[in-house]
């Protein structure tokens, strides 16, 4: 391979290749495996140097090298890429400049979010619970749809239970941890009392007990029996007559007739065995406890699925605020700039003189008149622009408030021109619509359940030859569109309100990121 070939490959890697040289590059790569290998090598150098620079920058600002692991790894050691398996290392890497650049902000955000949720979830599910505070015999650690009996005390998750602590559960499930390490899942209807750090009494109902410390002991007293457990899992069912049935799931359990019934008999039950003691103190092995299965654990609340990554790479740390206005204050919006109200940006609002007032009472821009307000702005290629406002339409039926981009500055018209979205007062069909434009052409999507006070955001992506717009309600993308030709006539960002509509607008923000290096 000649130096000229290498220079050609390098120009490609550095994204400096010309259209004239490109066919020669393709021929070279098609014909030569050496050239293809060199290309991969040069790419690796390029990427490695980017990583090093990011790590160097991170070290300057944070005192550590980005992504540097503190865990063992059997792979070849590289401060650039040795990430290890540790959760902290992974999160650290993802949040580092190098990590963010490598994996991209949207994915990094999702990844870190999922990791944190997973870790928290694992923590909740862990059987190795922390010891209870001194003096606390037991604690309620989870509840599922509990209904408490009228004569009993309502209980809550986290309640600490002392000697005699009574749970009268009509319906639902309660999970109780004892100081000895036992976990009891109580299934309503049931009446259960904490006797001491390793003993409970079940007067009626069902429970499952789990003790995963073989050195400890846990006992359940019932009106007819004592069930003693040494590192195992079992279920107890006490019926209305006081009859006690026990089924062992793991380990060995001793089922004994309560001494006050005059019995001294007991049974040793192994995994799979079942036994019972009736109200008269008669003890026996049985085949099955009851047709109903014991509940082994309290189901955890169902979590919503993780949100998908945003379809654009917004990195707030790189964002420049073009204009920000809390809309707190007083006076007409027309002619005001954000400077002086905690915002930035010198552009002044072009707004109707009446009915567009900054209202100190609601701490918002209260709009009671039809029309639109504009801030002069012209988009440039190579940027992400993020326009948002918190919006609440408080009157107006099918009337709406809107946010987006505009060409003209007709303050009497509520319809905007490009990439705009509206929210209606009525929470019926079409409560949210987005338009590619011009005006009401290119209707995109509805997010009809997204009503009330929400932050609406329009993102204009001018980084490619075909501009894109994304429409969001809170953090949810409700629509997007692509422009075959950039809408070059955009001259403002705008908010607008339909006739006979009252809207409260807060926290207006307009930011940009220059995406091209």
């Amino acid at each position, binding site marked *: 391979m000649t130096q000229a070939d*290498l*220079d050609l490959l*390098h120009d490609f890697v*550095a*994204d*400096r*290749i010309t259209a004239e040289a490109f066919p020669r*590059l*393709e021929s070279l*790569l*098609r014909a030569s*495996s050496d050239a*293809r*290998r*060199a*290309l*991969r*090598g*040069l*790419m*690796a*150098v*390029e*990427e*490695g*140097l980017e*990583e*090093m*620079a*990011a790590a160097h*920058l991170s070290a300057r600002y944070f005192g550590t090298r980005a992504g540097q692991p503190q865990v063992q790894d059997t792979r*070849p*050691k*590289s*401060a*650039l*890429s040795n*990430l290890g398996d540790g959760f902290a290392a*992974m999160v650290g890497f*993802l949040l580092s400049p190098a990590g963010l650049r*490598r*994996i*991209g902000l*949207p*994915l990094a955000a999702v*990844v870190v979010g*999922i*990791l944190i*949720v*997973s870790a928290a*979830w*694992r923590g909740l599910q862990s059987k190795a619970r922390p010891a209870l505070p001194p003096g606390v015999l037991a604690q309620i650690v989870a509840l599922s749809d509990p209904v408490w009996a009228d004569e009993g005390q309502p209980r809550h998750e986290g309640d600490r239970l002392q000697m005699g602590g009574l749970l009268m559960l009509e319906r639902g499930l309660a999970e109780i941890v004892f100081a000895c390490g036992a976990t009891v899942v109580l299934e309503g209807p049931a009446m259960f009392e904490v006797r001491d750090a390793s003993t409970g009494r079940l007067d009626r109902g069902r429970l499952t007990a789990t003790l995963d410390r073989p050195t400890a002991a846990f006992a359940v007293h019932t009106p007819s029996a004592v069930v003693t457990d040494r590192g195992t899992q079992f279920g107890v069912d006490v019926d209305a007559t006081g009859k006690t049935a026990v089924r062992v799931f793991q380990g060995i359990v001793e089922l004994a007739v309560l001494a006050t019934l005059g019995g001294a008999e007991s049974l040793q039950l192994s995994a799979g065995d079942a036994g019972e003691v009736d109200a008269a103190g008669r003890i026996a092995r049985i085949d099955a406890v009851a047709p109903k299965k014991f509940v082994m654990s309290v189901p955890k609340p169902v979590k919503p*699925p993780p949100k998908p*990554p945003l*379809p654009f*790479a917004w990195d707030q740390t790189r964002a420049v605020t073009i204009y920000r206005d809390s809309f707190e204050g007083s006076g007409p919006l027309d002619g005001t700039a954000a400077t002086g109200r905690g915002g930035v940006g010198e552009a002044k609002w072009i707004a109707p003189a009446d009915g567009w007032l900054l209202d100190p009472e609601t701490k918002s821009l209260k709009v009671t008149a039809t029309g639109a307000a504009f801030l002069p702005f012209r988009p440039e290629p190579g940027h992400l622009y993020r326009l948002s406002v918190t919006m609440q339409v408080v009157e107006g039926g099918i009337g709406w408030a809107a946010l987006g981009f505009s060409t003209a500055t007709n303050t009497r018209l509520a319809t905007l021109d490009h990439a705009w979205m509206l929210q209606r007062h009525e929470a019926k069909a079409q409560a949210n619509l987005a338009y590619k434009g011009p005006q009401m052409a290119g209707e995109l999507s509805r997010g009809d359940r997204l009503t009330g006070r929400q932050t609406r955001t329009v993102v204009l992506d001018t*980084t*490619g*030859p075909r501009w894109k717009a994304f429409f969001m309600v809170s953090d949810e993308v409700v629509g997007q569109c692509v422009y075959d030709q950039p809408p070059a006539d955009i001259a403002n960002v705008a908010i607008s309100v339909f006739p006979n509509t009252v809207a409260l607008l807060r926290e207006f923000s307009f930011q940009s990121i220059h995406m091209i*290096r």
Partner: protein
Amino acid sequence: MADELHEAFLRLFTRCEPELRAFVRSCLPRLQDVDEVMQEVSLVAWRKFGDLDDRGRFAPWACLIARYEILKYRRAHARNRLLLDESVIEALADEAAAEMPLHQRRLVALESCFEKLPEARRELVLAAYTPGTSQKELARQMGRTEGALYQLLSRIRQELWRCVEHTLAKEAGAS
């Protein structure tokens, strides 16, 4: 169960992401193109992760997805950009997939090669690659033209590439 799936995916994806990214980059040099394709790869891989029977084969499986996404991206953008022909991408992808395990070693070798550069050159490289740096401004600070700076950086990159190749060849000879 869903959490376990998430975590398994994230661990596997995070582990092979540098190699996967290098793989994509060897076919698409522009960072923006790579970012777009990688985002699609991550989403498609996550959507299909439940169907992957052998998680030990995650890297080649993700590589296949990446290859498909590269070609898809090329078809969507080839009119507007200088993107390599599909047959070239196919050839690069075949070899890059086979070379994925080499990526780590390349980076390790690059570190030691970088350390061998004179300090002034190291500083220059770090300055040039720092996010947000303008080559024009850097050239102005150095009293050079932008073209001269580009040529200098090109020589340094090629020097580093030769050093890395030499290191890998030596390692291969020693083993």
